[in-house]
């Protein structure tokens, strides 16, 4: 079972720092990582990807995070990402943006990465994500703090949000999203934390770190395949025309 760290923010302009981070991840025995460029990159070059791949033995994937405040900006920005080869994720406090993002087939994932965002998770978004086969993302970064009050609040909020998501049968993933490398942990340890502190069943927690992430990556790869019409429908070459 391959486990993923689904969100590691990196500066793609600074390859030395990136290499340091990746080496640290190797030390922690992380095998699959999804990198999120911090700079406003619209397309990641294949040469740059190859260069990054040569730095490490870890399997690397990419995602783009769109932090959007209002609907106008969302509609304008999302046009740039038509048929995009990486994971597209939207993060917004605005409920209208969340609903539109959940409805839009170009958006792969809606992120609830902090306390405020987690509180804004609505039934509508859950239902649309379920219909659209897209994903919801929760992060464990708010848990890794020293202040006990804030920590318990964060755990409580995550518990509520994840329980609602499991109940609605929507797809979701859990990522680390740690800004300090000394907060990074192996996904196996994060699964244990989710199980013991947040109360997610062990099988569900494992799914959120492996199976669901693989599904998300497959969704993005299938988008590039012209022969796939929609989920579960593939056009087959070589068949004779009927009628």
């Amino acid at each position, binding site marked *: 079972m391959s486990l993923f760290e689904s969100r590691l923010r990196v500066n793609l302009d600074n390859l030395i720092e990136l290499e340091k981070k990746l080496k640290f991840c190797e030390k922690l025995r992380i095998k699959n990582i999804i990198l999120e460029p911090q700079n406003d990159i619209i397309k990641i070059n294949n040469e740059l990807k190859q260069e990054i791949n040569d730095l490490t033995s870890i399997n690397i994937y990419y995602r783009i995070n769109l932090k959007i405040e209002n609907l106008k900006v969302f509609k304008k920005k999302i046009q740039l990402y038509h048929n995009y080869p990486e994971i597209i994720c939207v993060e917004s406090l605005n409920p209208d943006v969340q609903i539109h993002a959940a409805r839009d087939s170009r958006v792969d994932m809606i992120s609830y990465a902090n306390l405020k965002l987690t509180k804004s998770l609505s039934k509508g978004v859950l239902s649309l994500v379920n219909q659209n086969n897209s994903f919801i993302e929760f992060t464990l970064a708010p848990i890794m703090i020293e202040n006990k009050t804030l920590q318990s609040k964060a755990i409580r909020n995550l518990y509520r949000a994840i329980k609602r998501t499991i109940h609605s049968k929507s797809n979701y993933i859990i990522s680390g999203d740690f800004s300090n490398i000394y907060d990074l942990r192996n996904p196996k*340890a994060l699964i244990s934390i989710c199980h*013991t502190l947040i109360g997610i069943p062990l099988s569900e927690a494992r799914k959120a770190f492996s199976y669901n992430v693989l599904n998300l990556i497959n969704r993005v790869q299938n988008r590039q395949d012209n022969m796939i019409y929609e989920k579960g429908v593939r056009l087959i070459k070589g068949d004779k025309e009927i009628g």
Partner: protein
Amino acid sequence: MVKQERKRYILFNIINETPHRYNKIELINVIWNSIWRYYGLSVVNKMGLWIIDLNLEKNYGIIKFSHNSKELIISALSLVREIKGKRVIITPIKTSGTIKKIKKIKKEILK
């Protein structure tokens, strides 16, 4: 007849932010504090936690505990953030049911 409690062993690695010195007791206290903080008395008395081996120069250790509390121990170790104000990560490498096997794995890793 009461079943005998099964044991588990975890081999863990310690990653320090800066090379600094702390002794065995300080590390054990940090682990116990983490368990107390997150899980409390009701869990602590069922754990049966023992440090079997600890090498602070090579940054690894082996602990023994009851098999029921495997996930709790892994998360408590992972939730340790600092020792004496310096950032550390205690990362579990391997869990096993026998001390023989965990020592074999330790040898392979430390080669």
